[in-house]
Each structure stands twice: as structure tokens, then as C-alpha cells.
């Protein structure tokens, strides 16, 4: 199923337009023309990798051979089924994550995008991101993904130090990474993101800042800084447990993070989320949807989604997860059209808790307007305005509550998880004490 050349070219060209529009809209999110329930972001999970990285506990598999035709057909089927169930008519972003989705064929990516556009509408200016490892794609291959409709690349560069890359179990070198980055920028100017990790075992602040500065000279307009989380079940976790590797020092990681944010701010980057930095308005609209609690569909093994199954007559937002193991997932998709393993309806309070916890990760935080979309009765002032504990956080300069809304200060953002331990119970309390709203009809 080849994609008509004109449409693919159309997407590539639309990327520029899309970018310009984002400049204008900034963090206000995307089109508000259609009602929120008819819009969604789409996540596509490609579960395969060449090799297991020592730090990764994602749902991924290192197979002997992949039946890509079957995988492609199942992804297409599941996209069609879930789009129908959700009643979504407009897909505003697509994100191919994994695993290593750049190992998939461009034709698979094209087939999914084509199916999405047919089942719903995929506007030409939609953000379509592909995660790529510095090793897998050659320049020609990246171009082929571009032709298939991808208009943004996220490169898992992780480090510019070969010893660290080895420690992480990556198959690429720092040289490979910079080469891939240069190639990607040539093909997707202004639309390339890179990941850099911090807080690795034995990593020191000075050399890490050196890496960041070097990267600043080579990178595009988007950068993510991720502190290493030692996840149970990974090789790195075991090594640290056994004492063969030193445990990462949280003090040093905190220092890297603070220094890194400052360096990026000076370089003109806006920290629009805890770990994400952009300049020239190059925010990722797909990820923005997560933090704004917009609807998203997840397809592929183990993918998560959150949407109202309106197409099936539902009115409640559900958290959904697809079957983890690829072979089982495929069997289910072939039998039922989708591999949804769990559906958990989200109550109103749970949704508000997510609005709070996710929204505060962003620099704009939760605007009054945004909050009101989810909870028209109980304002942010009602919930947090009178709490002594919240007042203490405001007085400490960690949190701001004003005419714009509720958000973290620069210092507060780095300790958000501690702030939430005060804010979440306060929200629960306010929710329980609220005067019941009049019964809504229909």
C-alpha cells in the first residue's frame, strides 16, 4: 500500500506551515474549532529493538525475525477500530515510539498514516514524530520516512561520551550520533529533537555540562534532558544492586539538572516541561496533549490510551492498555480488530488529579480557563486558595496561584513530586466537601 506521492509531499511541505502556526499558538494548544471529544493524538508502539539497552524497562522485544507485513496490517486494523470506537474525527498528532520504530519500514509508517487519514482526518499540518536511534537510519532511510509522512524526528542520542554509551548498552558512538543529528537536521530543518541523559553512575557535573554545551552547538530547536531512573529488572539496576557500578548520586544529578536548565535558558530555550526544552516555538504538540489531558489513542503492543469511547456510545473517559506481548496482541487484533487488554473508567476526581499532576509539569501550569474545561463548578481558588499548606508553598516561592492560574516556579518545578503530595490530598478534600452540583440532564 504505497502512499500517493502528492500526499506525502504535501505533508512534508505542510511541516513548515505547521511550525509557523505553532509559533502563533504557542502553548495554547491546537485547534479549538472542533469539540475536544472529536479530536485526539495517536501513539503507535513499535515493540522491537536490535538490542536491549541496560537502562530500559519499556515494553520491547529483540526478535529473531519480524513478520512486518502482519505487524503493519495489525497496526492498521487497530488504528481503524479504535478511531471508530472513539468517534474521533480529527487526529492532530501521531507519534511512532518504541522499541525502535526507525527499524520499521517507511512503508509501514505510511500505511498507518494513510489508514488514519481515511478513518478520521489527519490534517496536513499534523505533527508526525518518529523516534530514531542514531545507528539505525541512514540518510536515505530518513528521507524515506519523510516521504512516508514523518515530519519530526526524536533522536535517542543519550550521551556524547562513548564510555557512557557503552554503559547504557547503546550500539552507537558519539560520532554516529552527531552524524545522524546533522543528517536529520538537513532533512527536517527545525523539526529535530535530541535526548540527553543525566545522573548516570560515576557521571560528573563538569564533563556532563561539556557534553551539553557541545550538543548546543549541533542541535536543532528541541532538546530533552532526562535524569536516569534505575528501573527494576534492567541490567543497570542489577549492576548497581550488586555493587559492580556505583549508585547514581542524586545530589550530582540535581546539580546537573539545575545547571543544565540554566545553560539552556541562556541559549534561548524555553523549558516548557520538566524535561523538555524548545526554542523558536518548536514545542512537541503530541506530548503537550498528554500534559493537558487531551484525548489520545494508543495502538500497538502495550500502548496506552485515554479517550471517551463515543463511537460505542460511551460518555466516560477511559484509561486503556493494549496487550503487552506482540504475538498475543496480533492474535487479538486479528480476532477482534483490537488488542485492548484493560479498560478502566476514570472518575471525575481521578481526571482532575491527572489534570493537576500533568498540567503542573508545564511552564504555563494550569490556567483557570484550562481547569474550567474539566471542572466548571470548583475553581482553582476554591480548591487551593484557603489551604494553609498551599499558602506555605506559595510563600516559599515554589508555587504560584494568581489571575493566570496555578503553576510551579522555576525552583518548584524541580521538586514538583513533593508539591503534589500536598496538592493532591487538598484536591481530594475539596472534592469531598463540594456542594453537589445540580443533576445534569442527558
Amino acid at each position, binding site marked *: 500500500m504505497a502512499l500517493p506521492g502528492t500526499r506525502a509531499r504535501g505533508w512534508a511541505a505542510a511541516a513548515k506551515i505547521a511550525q509557523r502556526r505553532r509559533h502563533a499558538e504557542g502553548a495554547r494548544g491546537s485547534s479549538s474549532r472542533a469539540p475536544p471529544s472529536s479530536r485526539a493524538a495517536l*501513539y503507535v508502539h513499535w515493540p522491537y529493538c536490535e538490542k536491549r539497552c541496560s537502562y530500559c524497562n519499556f515494553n520491547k522485544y529483540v526478535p529473531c525475525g519480524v513478520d512486518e507485513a502482519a505487524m503493519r496490517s495489525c497496526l492498521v486494523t487497530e488504528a481503524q477500530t479504535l478511531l471508530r470506537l472513539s468517534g474521533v474525527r480529527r487526529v492532530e498528532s501521531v507519534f511512532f515510539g518504541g522499541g525502535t520504530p526507525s527499524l520499521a519500514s517507511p512503508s509501514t509508517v505510511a500505511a498507518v498514516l494513510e489508514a488514519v487519514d481515511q478513518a478520521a482526518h489527519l490534517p496536513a499540518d499534523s505533527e508526525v514524530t518518529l523516534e530514531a536511534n542514531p545507528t539505525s537510519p541512514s540518510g536515505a532511510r530518513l528521507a524515506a520516512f519523510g516521504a512516508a509522512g514523518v515530519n519530526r524526528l526524536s533522536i535517542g542520542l543519550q550521551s556524547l561520551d562513548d564510555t557512557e554509551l557503552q554503559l547504557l548498552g547503546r550500539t552507537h558512538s558519539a560520532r554516529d550520533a552527531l552524524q545522524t543529528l546533522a543528517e536529520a537536521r538537513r532533512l527536517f530543518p527545525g523539526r529535530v529533537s535530541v535526548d540527553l541523559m543525566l545522573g548516570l553512575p560515576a557521571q560528573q557535573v563538569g564533563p556532563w555540562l561539556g557534553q551539553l554545551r557541545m550538543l548546543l552547538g549541533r542541535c536543532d530547536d528541541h532538546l530533552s534532558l*532526562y*535524569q*536516569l*531512573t534505575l528501573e527494576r529488572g534492567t541490567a543497570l539496576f542489577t549492576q548497581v544492586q550488586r555493587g559492580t557500578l556505583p549508585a547514581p548520586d*542524586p*545530589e550530582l*544529578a*540535581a*546539580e546537573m*539538572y*539545575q545547571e543544565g536548565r540554566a545553560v539552556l535558558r541562556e541559549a534561548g530555550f524555553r523549558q516548557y516541561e*520538566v*524535561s523538555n526544552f524548545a526554542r523558536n516555538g518548536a514545542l512537541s504538540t503530541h*506530548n503537550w496533549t*498528554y*500534559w493537558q489531558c487531551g484525548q*489520545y489513542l*494508543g495502538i500497538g503492543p*502495550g*500502548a*496506552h*490510551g*485515554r479517550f471517551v469511547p463515543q463511537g460505542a456510545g460511551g460518555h466516560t473517559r477511559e*484509561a486503556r*492498555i493494549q496487550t503487552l506481548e506482540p504475538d498475543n496482541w496480533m492474535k487479538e487484533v486479528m480476532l477482534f480488530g483490537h488488542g485492548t487488554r484493560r479498560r*478502566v473508567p476514570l472518575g471525575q476526581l*481521578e481526571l482532575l*488529579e*491527572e489534570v493537576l*499532576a*500533568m498540567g503542573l*509539569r508545564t511552564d504555563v501550569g494550569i490556567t483557570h480557563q484550562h481547569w474550567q474545561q474539566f471542572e466548571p463548578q470548583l475553581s482553582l481558588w476554591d480548591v487551593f486558595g484557603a489551604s494553609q499548606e498551599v499558602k*506555605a*508553598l506559595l510563600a*516559599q516561592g*515554589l508555587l504560584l496561584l494568581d489571575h493566570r492560574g496555578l503553576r510551579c516556579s522555576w525552583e518548584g*518545578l*524541580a*521538586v*514538583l*513530586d*513533593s*508539591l*503534589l*503530595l500536598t496538592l*493532591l*490530598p487538598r484536591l481530594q478534600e475539596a472534592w469531598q466537601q463540594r456542594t453537589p452540583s445540580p443533576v445534569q440532564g442527558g
Partner: protein
Amino acid sequence: MWTPVGRGRWHGRALTVWATSAAHRGRLEPRLTPSRGAAAKSRTADRLYSSADRKEKIDMSRFSVENIRNFSIIAHVDHGKSTLADRLLELTGTIDKTKNNKQVLDKLQVERERGITVKAQTASLFYNCEGKQYLLNLIDTPGHVDFSYEVSRSLSACQGVLLVVDANEIDLKNADPARVEKQIEKVFDIPSDECIKISAKLGTNVERVLQAVIERIPPPKVHRKNPLKALVFDSTFDQYRGVIANVALFDGVVSKGDKIISAHTKKTYEVNEVGVLNPNEQPTHKLYAGQVGYLIAGMKDVTEAQIGDTLYLPKQPVEPLPGFKSAKPMVFAGMYPIDQSEYNNLKSAVEKLTINDSSVTVHRDSSLALGAGWRLGFLGLLHMEVFNQRLEQEYNASVILTTPTVPYKAVLSSAKLIKEYREKEITIINPAQFPDKSKVTEYLEPVILGTIITPDEYTGKVMMLCQARRAVQKNMMYIDQNRVMLKYLFPLNEIVVDFYDSLKSLSSGYASFDYEDAGYQTADLVKMDILLNGNLVEELVTIVHKDKAHTVGKAICERLKDSLPRQLFEIAIQAAIGSKIIARETVKAYRKNVLAKCYGGDITRKMKLLKRQAEGKKKLRKIGNIEVPKDAFIKVLRTQPDK
């Protein structure tokens, strides 16, 4: 622990048994059965007899006084007493041999987890020897010095004891029976030819122990024909059946339906059930003079079954047996519910536990910061920990415990205070009530006479440890070629927390320790406060000797630093005497605490984690605006450094 022998009202005989420790450690080694033949045969006969017997109520009248032996096993902690008890139970068919019996008599979770006996247990063994059917009542007793009160109670129901001596203090080294024989001769005046060498783990020679119990321990001197005289030597509380009193019959007979009177309360009860313990309750028709068992008589109130009480029949009053000297608490600590709404639940849990452990004293107490609670007196720190653990495990109660303190005294000089207390010399069991120096002539601290027996290679280290604990040497003698017995006068507060552990660790487990009360001595005492950002931590108020205030204060601050989680602001931890700060540590503020990656697939997991943490936060104790986990203070109290 030797001291309980002869300490109570008991005047019987001691048999010595020694065990090689390799044979009773709790390792998973194959358990060998002793040689077959005569011994095995008699065992089979026993088992057939007793299992057939159990189908119906046992007729206890068959066991005349001369065929009854009541005995305890006395041993140092960890010398294999419970393992020997397991073997004796197996050998007499009381418990099935095929099962993996480990510490059968240790019923409490805390006992099995810690490998110690806390609560004495009774088991009636039926044993056939030379054609005669014997009733052997074994009363298993705790081995730790904290629980000597339990031991003295058990001994009052016995006519003899088995003294178990480990011929090898710790495992893996060579057992040395010859040296132990000499020591026993020297310390206890027990001739070496009266010792039986056994391995409880392997079962070697255990049968001979039973024969020796029959030959050497006298039957109780009692009479069935006399009016009933029963001693309550222990009691347990059952939620459904009320109080179960363990009794030893000194005279007479008791059966179901009898009316009995408590000499202590003068209340009359009707006996609903009598029986023997083997080790679970086994109803019988009657219990006869010389026998040991239990009775249930509708005692519902925890105060009704006084340990040491005498029971008799309404028309036949008897001279009550002398009561026990009540246990003397050595360590006091405040106990408060974490949440005041839990007060009533905790109250009932404490009441139920104290009927099973009457050595705990209970006074109501309250504090501004901690609310309503109690000040409890314990026999020692292990006793306190065990009590706390039982509250948690058996009653699901969660409590705040304050720093343990010993009962200090103050001689008052202030006329106003003397009037208030109505006496000149007061005992202080709560550091919060420690009177200021200006109102006091002198302070007194309790002292004990400690006895340490150690291989001489550790003498130097032991003496240094004792010196560091402000102890004064009273005596030192060699009890054999390479063992030294040291006697020291210790301030009690220097040994309550961790002295025993330190002694054990510096002597590779070889040194033993026992102590007895030695009155009071004057002492230069001060009250030390611990502050978090200037807020007093009530749990950690401590009375210390002036010379030790700095060391102790510094150690507490350092350990608090390690157990306090970071918060959004810096925490100053200070130790203060009055307004003078003597030590300080700082916990830095959190600089980063936020999940790095939070995308579509991470949200559910993150929200779950946040909610769990927020829920946990509600259970934290707040001091000022500082949140302190419940175990932070316990961690601080548990490990004292020894240099």
C-alpha cells in the same frame, strides 16, 4: 542465664544437660533419628497409647502422684532449649515426628521470627518407662535476662529443672565438653558424672534425659485427698473463651462443674473446662494433685486471673500459697497512638496483651504533642521491642514509642515541689517531669550488679566497654584456665539499650551477661532535648549523665540525620541542654524530586505512586512543619554506637 535457678520459691534439683551447638542451630541439616531398637519400640508404644487415648477425654486419675514429674528447662538464650523441648515432645509422641518441628512451644510470631522464647509454655508428656506410665509436665521458659520473671513463675510449679549448657558457645568451632564439665562443677557444684551429653538437633541421648527426669527429679509432695489448692502460675486471654488460667495443683482435685474461689478476689467461679496442655489445650475429666494443666472458669475481666493467686473450693478454704514478688520494670517508655482516633483500639490491645504479660506496668499519660497515651514499664529493651512487635502483629496497632528511660529519683529541695508530690524523694519515669536542678538536692540513678563471663582473650575489650559505660569493677576471677568472671556495678541506663548486643559482638558471641538490682547511686544528671528547626521532639527527650551529654547528643543528631527524609526546606537537628545547643546536624532541602519522563504510558503508574505517597504522608508525625516517618525515632533508639 544461670541466676533463675534457686531464685524463686523453687527448691528442687537441677539436672545438667549439655548440648553441642552444631546440633541445635536452625540450619537445614538432615535430621537423623537415633538408633533403632528398644528406644524406638517404647516410642511406638507411647504414640499408640496416647493417640488412642486422645479420642476421648483423658482420665488423669491414672497418674498417681509418684508417677508425676514437673520440670522446666533452664538455659542461656540461644543454647537450644526449644530444640530440646521439640525432641522431648517427639520422643513421647506428643507431636508427630514426621513433621519438621521447630520451636513447637514458641507459638507467637515474634518468637519464631526472633528465635527466642518470650512466653512460657507448658506441655504434658505421657511417657512409658519400665512398664510404668509417667506424666511429665514440661514448662518451657524464656532464656533472655529480660524475661526472668516468666522463669520464676514457671519454676514455682516445678520440682526440678534441666539445666542445658551449650558445650560450645557458638557454632562451627570445636565443642569442648571437658572444659564445660569443669566449669559446671566450679560454678554450680554439680558433679560432672551427673551431666548427660546430648545433641538435641540429632536426638542423640535425649531418651536418657527423660529417664533422668524420672530418676532424679522428685515427684511433687502433694495429696489428692486434701482440699483443692491450685496455683495460677500463668494465664492467657482467648477472645472467645475468656481467661485460660494455667494451674498447678498442690492438693486435691478439680473437675468441670466445680465451684472455685479466688483467694485474691474472693470471687466464685464455675469451672467450664479443665485439661492438660500438650501443648494445645486438651480437655480432661479432672485434674489431680501434682498435675499441671489449665482451667477455664468464666473469668472475663483481665484483672480476675492474678498470677500467683490460689484457687480453692467454697466449703474448704485453704491457706493461700505465697504470691509472687511482682516483676520490677527496669525500662519505661511512653506509648501513644499515631492517630488519637485509634486511642480506644490501642487501649483494648494493650489491656489484652498485658493480661498475657503481667510484667508490663501501665500508667496513663498524656503529652501536648502526642496526645493521650500511656507510660509503660518493661523488664528490658528486648521486652519492650517484643511488646511493640506483638501489638503490631497480633493487634494490628501502630504506635509512637518514646526514648526508653530508667526510673531515676530526685531528692527535692523546693518546699513547693515537696508539697506537690507529698514526698521528698520522687521517682521519675517520664523525662518530661524531670525537675530542674535548682529544685533538687541531688539526683539518683538506679544501678545494677552485672556479671560477665568471658574467654580471657576478650577481657581487655570487655573492660573497656564497661568503663565506657561508667561501670565500676567490683570483682574479677578466673573460673577455669581461660574463662574470666567479671563483676561490675553499672548505672542501669548504660545497659538497657544495647549493652548486651555490644558485648556479644565484641566477644564474637562468647561473653555472657546477667545482672541483679543494686539500688541507687547519686549522679550528675541533665535533661537533654532534641529539636527539629527549634521544635521539641517529645519522643526523644532524654535524661543523661552530664559527662555523656555531648556524645549521646551528637550520636542522636547523626542518626536522626540518616533517618529523616529530605523535605522542601532545610532541617536543623539540635541537641540542647536548657538553652545551650550541644550538637547539631543539618538535613539539606530537596533539590530535585520530579519524575523525568511522564508521557502517555507513564501516567497511570505515576498517579498510583503519588496517591500511595500522599496516603503515607497522612500517617507521618508532624513536628512543626517537618514530616517524620514513624520508624525514624525507633531507628534512632535502636542502634547506639559503641567506641
